[in-house]
């Protein structure tokens, strides 16, 4: 329904220019391209998160591939980390299972490679230490060769990101930083100034995990961020706003799609997988949820 079955690389000519038109690896449209495509269809983009190695390395590849097939525009592959201090119990559980299962960084790249081959831009979401340890430039290089689109770095502020921004430039990768309800306009300006791909608006003050209601401050945060972006000097690239934390149903996706460019969902997928009695049941549940969310992001406009 959204063209993801097309062969990799020939998917989105317009996005090629966005990312500078270098190379022709999988998902070269970059994340901004996926957002533009969704925008052109009059809807928000659907961004799905899943940690590598959960429920197993191959299992995560299968699930993420299913998420793309059922309507996710962008995939975030989580790099499982021993101390996920911004994650709630659901993602903690999944990540713990992945680590106990022995997942390594090489498995994360393998997962990215497989998912990016579907044509969906594939990001890695990671706490900073594993990248730091791997070597920032080496990580960027290997992510790029795996076909990855970039990094989401929830505990890396622009102030500490010098090496990463340089590596991202060298290897032509998107860099996605977070803005929060508590961010001042000055900080939003600083953060959006270094983002490429999209800016991740954290919709509530808290850790990851599905909530029954989307925080009322979320729309205000998106509005403030959009204002800061629109005040940027002419010629600055367009920067879409994805909203995450707490979204878990089609109705919530529709609500968020009413004011944000992208809807980011993580814990709700993992909840389905954790609750499923078998891998097949998990895949079915994820497909169902993706379809519900995909319908939501279309209904919201």
């Amino acid at each position, binding site marked *: 329904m959204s063209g993801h079955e097309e062969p990799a690389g020939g998917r989105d000519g317009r996005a090629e220019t966005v990312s500078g038109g270098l190379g022709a690896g999988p998902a070269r449209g970059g994340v901004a391209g996926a957002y533009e495509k969704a925008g052109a269809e009059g809807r928000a983009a659907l961004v799905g998160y899943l940690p590598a190695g959960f429920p197993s390395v191959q299992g995560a590849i299968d699930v993420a591939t299913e998420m793309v097939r059922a309507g996710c525009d962008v995939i975030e592959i989580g790099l499982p980390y021993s101390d996920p201090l*911004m994650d709630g119990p659901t993602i903690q559980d999944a990540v713990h299972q992945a*680590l106990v299962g022995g997942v390594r960084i090489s498995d994360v790249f393998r997962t990215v490679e497989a998912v990016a081959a579907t044509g969906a831009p594939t990001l890695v979401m990671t706490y900073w*230490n594993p990248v730091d340890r791997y070597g920032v430039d080496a990580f960027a290089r290997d992510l790029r060769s795996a076909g990855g689109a970039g990094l989401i770095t929830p505990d890396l502020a622009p102030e500490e990101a010098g090496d990463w921004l340089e590596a991202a430039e060298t290897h032509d990768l998107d860099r996605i930083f977070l803005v929060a*309800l508590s961010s001042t306009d000055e900080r939003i300006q600083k*953060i959006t100034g270094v983002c490429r791909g999209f800016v991740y608006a*954290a919709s509530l003050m808290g850790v990851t995990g599905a909530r029954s209601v989307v925080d009322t401050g979320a729309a205000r945060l998106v509005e403030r961020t959009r204002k800061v972006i629109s005040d940027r000097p002419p010629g600055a690239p367009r920067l879409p706003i994805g909203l995450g934390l707490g979204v878990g149903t089609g109705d919530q996706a529709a609500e968020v799609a009413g004011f944000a460019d992208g809807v980011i969902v993580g814990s709700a997928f993992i909840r389905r997988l954790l609750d499923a009695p078998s891998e097949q049941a998990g895949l079915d549940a994820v497909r169902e949820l993706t379809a519900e969310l995909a319908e939501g992001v279309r209904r919201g406009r």
Partner: protein
Amino acid sequence: MTIDAARRDFAVPSESGHFGRFGGRFAPEALMAALDELTVEYATAKGDPKFQAELTDLLENYAGRPSPLTEAKRFGEHAGGVRILLKREDLNHTGSHKINNVLGQALLTRRMGKKRIIAETGAGQHGVATATAAALLGLECVVYMGEEDTVRQALNVARMRMLGAEVVSVKTGSRTLKDACNEAFRNWVSTVDGTHYCIGSTMGPHPFPMMVRDFQRIIGVETRRQVIDLTGSLPDAVVACVGGGSNAMGIFHAFIPDTDVKLYGFEAGGDGVGTGKHAATLVGGSVGVIHGMRTYLLQDEDGQTMETHSVSAGLDYPGVGPEHSWLHDTGRAVYREINDAEAMDAFSLLCRTEGIIPAIESAHALAGALKVGRELGADATVVVNLSGRGDKDMHTAAQWFGLMDEEAGAGR
């Protein structure tokens, strides 16, 4: 190096919270506003005579400062006859140096108009100190403690509850101090508007390492004066245990410009650094990012935090304060490890030679002092920061030395 040059060189951290390449702020964006607010509020309070007067009053008339400097003659005989002086932080109210920092942060909490204070704790000493200050100032208090530590430090759990604090037993990860920190950070992100996270050591994102050091600095300032009064000169060495590193930074800081004074930090060697079961971060670790700071930590080749081991709950932590990493890199302080058995031997020795029961954490410093004393020779003076008392450790010690009746020792 002249004293002035040394003072200038050691005038860290930078405005961004960096001690050389260490420290900084690796925190979720949701906390940045609170960290900025805290930085400004602390700077203002630091220059406010009223705040300083209130803190000094509490330190003197509530916590019992200054703490004495006790000469440990009989203990010193076991260190080659070296003169050993104990800085008695164990005699502070609540039984450790932790109260110095907590009183400062609790006053700041009130100053910021926040009504709730949270803390992580390993051995329970920081938790007890925080619960104490919260009771004194009428603040709501929640303490996060690893499940394993709630067992080995059960007495401190009861103390915190007695003082009106809620103790949350953390059942994730290794169920020790590291995981208590994770859980405290998670809570803080969702409650930051009305809650202050009272970090208990010289660790975490800026401004914590600097602020906690400043609140603990009084240990070294007093010690320096007391040693000179007693001996007429500066000591040859200052020795402390290092987990996160607040008691060590507290006693080291005033001596940093005195470049003739050797500074030794002793980390928890557990079963021995060679066995992989230890918590000796500077001795056996590598540089990375943990709990909001760039510092040395114990990690595997993928950057995953490694499990640590120590008989001491308070030192059982895979990271270390960034200023220690910096002192380590510059060579101004020397860091070595003391294994479980060495620490417990020193624990027993101090009990029997001086009639002082030390915290197992502080026993690592005592064991270190025995080594340093033998190395320096009988003419030397060595100051040991006796950071806490060992009442809380009686259960562990009784088991270690086989002092339990069989029935009482069963069931663990």
